[in-house]
């Protein structure tokens, strides 16, 4: 079992990390995260929340909603609202049509991001709380990935409701 996990891990870890990573492998619970980038930052969403990754969907404009709600899309007959995370976080707008469909408390929402990066296993104990002083809203935790980047754990519930 440990052997299998190990080989799986290799897929997601850079080679230099492998050695010291192996030592802490056995007892630690991990959770899969989907990493994406938006405005130069790396964000992670729990993989179990992710229902779909969409590209090139026509977004239907919806009047009279905040500008970060870009509209709705037709995902196989389901009407799903699309939130632009750049605008939601007060960043400049950029044309990108790569989206992640997540399930937030039973309702599906599309999130527009710059680019979907990869899937990683994150040991749960490596996720650290966000210092309260930072103004990064909607982030419920952060963690350093093996490649040295910092992943911000996105709280989808907060993304929708303030």
């Amino acid at each position, binding site marked *: 079992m440990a052997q299998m996990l190990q080989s799986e891990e290799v897929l997601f870890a850079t080679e230099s990390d492998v050695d010291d990573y192996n030592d802490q492998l056995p007892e630690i619970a991990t959770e899969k995260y989907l990493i994406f980038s938006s405005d130069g930052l790396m964000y992670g969403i729990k993989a179990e929340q992710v229902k779909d990754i969409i590209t090139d969907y*026509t977004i*239907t*404009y*919806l*009047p*009279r*909603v*905040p500008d970060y*709600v870009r509209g*709705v*899309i*037709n995902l*196989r*007959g*389901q*009407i*799903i*609202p699309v939130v632009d995370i750049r605008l939601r976080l007060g960043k400049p707008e950029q044309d990108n049509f790569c989206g992640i469909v997540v399930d937030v408390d039973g*309702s*599906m*929402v599309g999130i527009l991001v710059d680019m979907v990066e990869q899937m990683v296993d994150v040991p749960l104990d490596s996720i650290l709380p966000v210092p309260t002083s930072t103004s990064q809203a909607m982030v419920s935790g952060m963690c350093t990935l093996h490649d040295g980047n910092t992943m911000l754990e996105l709280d989808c519930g907060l993304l*929708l409701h303030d």
Partner: protein
Amino acid sequence: MGDSILDMYLYETNTLLEQLDGILLTAEQADTFSEDSVNEIFRIMHTIKGSSAMMEFSSLMTVAHRIEDMFFIVREKGMDVVPEQTKPELFDMLFQAVDFFRGEIEKVENGDPLSQSIDHIVNKINSLIDKIQGNPAAPAANASAPAENASAPAAAEASAPAISAVNQDYPFGIHVFFDEGSGMENLRAFMLVNSVKDYCGDFITYPDNVETDPSTSDIIADQGFLLWFRTAEERDNATHAMNGAGSVREYQPVDAARPAPAPTQAPKDETPAPAAQAPKAEAPAAKPAPAPAPAAGQQHAKESLISVNLSKLDQLLAVVSEIVITESMVTASPDLKGLRLDNFTKSARDLRKLTDDLQDVSMSLRMVPVSGTFQKMNRIVRDMSKKLGKRAKLTLIGEDTEVDKTIVDAIGDPIMHIVRNSMDHGLEEKESDRVAAGKDPVGEVILAARHTGSEVIIEIKDDGQGVDLQAVLNKAIRQGLAQQDHEYSQKEILNFLMMPGFSTNTEVTEYSGRGVGMDVVKKNVADVGGTVSITSEWGKGMTTTLKIPLTMAIMDGMEVSVGGSMFTIPINSIQSSLKVAAKDVIHDPARGEMVKIRDNFYPIIRAKELFQMDKGYENIEDGILMWVESGEHSYCLFVDELLGEQQIVVKPLPNYVNSFGVKNYGITGCSILGDGSISIILDVINVYTAAHNIF
């Protein structure tokens, strides 16, 4: 129609029994009933009682009624009323009752006669009720009253076939019951005899001198009327006469205990024997009255409906719409450009036709007309008008209105309860009262369904006496629902009618009472996001209105475009579309725009401005005006282009989007068009209100 009612009944009862089984199992494990499950069982029994009475399955009705009585006590007094040592007995009895219901339903499905001897189970329930009631010091007065009511039909059922064959030469009998309280039973029997004579000449009757002896009337009313024939064939012929005869409530073939050739024994010894058991054991097919299907047709009674999880249907719809889109992507693929592919083109055409059909069929799966539910009410009105001795007619309006399956499921029970209430409490007790009030002696119940832009509206209206507000208020005060020294508006008083446990009728009848009805109505309608409102005018009748949002209804809409986005305006709110020249537009001091159409001025609302769109026509001459009207508002909506009429399926907007209050801007839903794009459905009234609040 008869079959579909039976199908519905079987399906509904089976579903309820399944539910009941689940509740019982959980309750037995917990060794007590929660308040919710007591209410649930009470409701299930109430429904089974009502629908069985409608189908004239009296054994089911009687048992359900007794169990309902029992749970009425439990509901009132709480579970503590059941002595500890009685609990296992209670559970046993309930499981037995479920099995009994199942058995009876199976008999109905197979076209077999229903059980006549339900005494053992009724006795069990009675003894349990006694035990429960023996516990508290003061037994509920109104609970014991229905108990007697209920046992009466049971007893009648058991003792009814006590009349025995009088002559051994005529062993094949028919036992006929006339409608209760129809009066002059002897003359009715005589008329029946006359019509039977058309089919076969040789038969005897009991009582035999009906046309001359009026005293036989009571015997017939009490015990039924018996006709005896020489052969089974003659008897079958005679049943044709029964079908045509008026006021025959029920008839069933009975055979003399002993087969026809009776060699040695004197007839006298034999004949008193066939008492209660006779019909049960030997009646070949005791048919449940007025619609005796031929034996071959009995198989038909099997359920032809299956229940499908709605989420599966949604899934199907989603896949189908993807197929349609993919199909057009394949057949219109740019790779095919410039190629001459005769066979491919032909097959592609066939494929398109098939996918279109597929889409139509799957769309129609969820949509059902309300007529099925409405038609059921015909039967209820008919039966109740006989039982209660009130003449009434049912008028159906808009019964072909199509609504989503979930809505039809949810409104069936509520409508039934309301119609029953109208018949029972709404219409005047006596026709003379109606005449005195200047009304047609025949009461009327109107059932109407219609679509507005965003809702299905169902109205149940009667022209009876209306609601006695004072009586309702007094009752509400007695029930502790209202306060003595508080002024209540008419609306508030009417709302008491829909509170749990409220009923203005102190007497419990087979059809209504106990106030279980209106709170069920409210609950079921609220489950699909709808509202119930009651209006009443003293002396003129009451109207109950169910307003249910269209979760997914098909609607005719006009597609228009504004700034590259598509919007749908419900066809029924469009008056016409028109192009106007800039000089026709009149400005008011507040810079509002108006246009004159046929001697009236109408305000112009620019969709582009209302919806804050970047693109879209500015010049009034480029675009087009849609003259719309809804309620008392009439105005012109300025849009870019008219795209055409289309039938659309209304989909609700995601809750997240609704949380921004887009409904207030007239955006009620959306619809997926054939090419997969989304169109936004506008609600004409809210567009007007929004425009007024902004500008």
